[in-house]
């Protein structure tokens, strides 16, 4: 019972940064922009988030620093890929390389420092319920926020007019432009949202997951978030399934090793990727079939004025 609760708690902690970063990238890609710089924006978010929290002593301000840093990074991308119509793939990769270096520079003075991690909710009575108490009523604010965020994004994309317009830009920017929508401005906001989410996801690592900053601490999570967006076929619901499944298999394979089940650990380490890809591909085959990628994803748009 206690072990099950501990596993679920660890799964939520491991999945949350993936979910937040992937949610942001999903919105960016739905507007037709492919930003491969998630890893770079995340790691700068981690460095600035830690710096903010360490300087002010407040996790909340640290999170804001992370969001701001991610947004600023995404503005560089927007300037290049949208403003100057540079190739999006190349710009995104460059953003990652820039981010890794920049975060090392920003974080250099903070390596080896410690902060008190984000507090976990406690509601007397509710948090003490066995098995589900701490899972439902004992998480840190990031976990609750990530769930609110994905619900909000789902509502925005499918239930609001603005979301419809954003998707229109992603599927056919020429038509959206012809209808009078400011395609580049909409895409810029989408890219900024993606950057803000990536920055927050990065900040989650030193503020709640492992409360210290070390260069390179995102360790490829930005790339996993990117892959999750593709394998969820750009749908928020499947993204939630993918992110939690990835986190769950990651944690369970560690436990399986501890129990000594005798399966080679190299295979166990590959399992989260295998399981997530398999399940999401199966999910996307059952209903629609074929590609559901935004039709204009990754293509450059230069409006004729």
């Amino acid at each position, binding site marked *: 019972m*206690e*072990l099950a609760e*501990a*596993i679920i708690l*660890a799964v939520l*902690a*491991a999945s949350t*940064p993936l979910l937040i970063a992937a949610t942001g990238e999903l919105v960016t890609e739905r507007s037709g922009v492919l930003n491969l710089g998630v890893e770079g924006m995340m790691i700068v978010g981690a460095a600035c988030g830690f710096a903010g929290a360490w300087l002010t002593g407040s996790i909340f301000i640290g999170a804001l620093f992370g969001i701001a840093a991610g947004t600023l990074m995404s503005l560089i991308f927007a300037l290049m890929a949208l403003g100057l119509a540079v190739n999006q793939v190349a710009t995104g990769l460059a953003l990652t390389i820039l981010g*890794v270096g920049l975060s*090392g520079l920003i*974080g*250099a003075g903070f*390596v*080896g420092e*410690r902060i008190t991690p984000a507090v976990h909710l406690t509601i007397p009575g509710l948090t003490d319920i066995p098995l589900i108490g701490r899972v439902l009523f004992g998480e840190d604010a990031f976990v609750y926020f990530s769930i609110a965020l994905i619900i909000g994004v789902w509502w925005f994309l499918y239930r609001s007019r603005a979301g419809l317009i954003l998707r229109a830009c992603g599927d056919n920017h020429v038509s959206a432009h012809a209808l009078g929508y400011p395609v580049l401005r909409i895409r810029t906001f989408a890219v900024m949202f993606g950057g803000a989410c990536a920055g927050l996801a990065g900040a989650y*690592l030193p503020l709640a*997951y*492992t*409360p*210290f900053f*070390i*260069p*390179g*601490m995102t*360790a*490829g*999570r930005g790339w996993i978030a990117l892959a999750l967006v593709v394998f969820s076929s750009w749908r928020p619901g499947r993204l939630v399934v993918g992110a939690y499944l990835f986190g769950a298999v*990651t*944690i369970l394979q*560690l*436990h399986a*090793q*501890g*129990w*000594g089940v*005798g399966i*080679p*650990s*190299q295979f*166990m*380490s590959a399992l989260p990727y295998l399981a997530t890809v398999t399940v999401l591909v199966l999910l996307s085959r059952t209903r629609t079939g074929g590609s559901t990628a935004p039709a204009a994803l990754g293509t450059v748009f230069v409006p004729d004025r």
Partner: protein
Amino acid sequence: MRKTLLALAAGLLLSGSVSAASAADKLKVGFIYLGPIGDLGWTYQHDLARQALVKELGDKIETTYLENVPEGPDAERAIEQLVRAGNKLIFTTSFGYMDPTLKVAKKYPNVHFEHSTGYKRDKNMSTYSAKWYQGRYIQGLIAAKMSKSGVLGYIGSFPIPEVVSGINATILAAQTINPNIKVKIIWANTWFDPGKEADAAKALIDQGADVIMQHTDSPAAMQIASERGKLAFGQDSEMIKFGPKTQLTSILDTWGPYYIARVKAELDGAWKSEDTWGGLDSHMFAMAPYTNMPDDVKKMAEDAQAAITAGKLHPFKCPVLGQDGKEVECKGGANLADGQILGMNFYVKGIDDKLPGK
């Protein structure tokens, strides 16, 4: 305008040649690092040693380092870059640089190379490593004394001989204190991923381990153990900041004396290709202060350290029993031979787990 440009160009040329002339008097020493120098672990310790080198011989040498160099073919380019920049002695500080270093060494016979933790050598390529298993043995003694649950948690990186011999040395030591000691092993399959290392530590603690040891590079496991009120050992460098009431000790990589000795040899023209595998006696590594333990445990650890340093105690003293209970062939007389330890690919008796890939 044109005149100014010309003057500027001439000035640049002049300053360029001047700095080259002054640099020519100094021996150029290059370093290739795996991680960022701020990783607080493996690369950080190598850079501390480089700094010690500069402090000692700074008037005679000039050092350059490249950090975050991935292992594999790409490393070759980085090493060659150091050669072309005029470095005459180059330290490549990770196992995965072995083949790239050898390739570049063959191409530039007049440049000397020092490769860390590998086994391939050439006329102009030395190797150096440390007998960390000696430190792991001391940790095993402490762990068995300090564990209340009788379950130790071990986070491994990759199932390579260096890590496997560390696990075996730990459990052999622990068994001398508590014959029924259990060890749970989780392979992270990475040297560095703080999140995953933290998750592994959580899993081990949730499964009943109360002393955590790691062969991965970040202080994440130490921090989790500290949060949960358990005990842990650091890795590569001092991690007590992340667990002031948690760290028992830590194996500290101290490359400084070796680097200074090798550079001095190079300066004197006495550099030779060598295979150095140093233990506690040669100061290739050190143990961090023994903390968070009662005085009798501390004394036991210090005695063991003294005995190993003096060569009176060997972690792999024969007979060593394999997992199947059969005696491992003893090729080194009273102890396992160095080659058997360097290539260790089996678990000793008392480890319930299966070695990956076996």
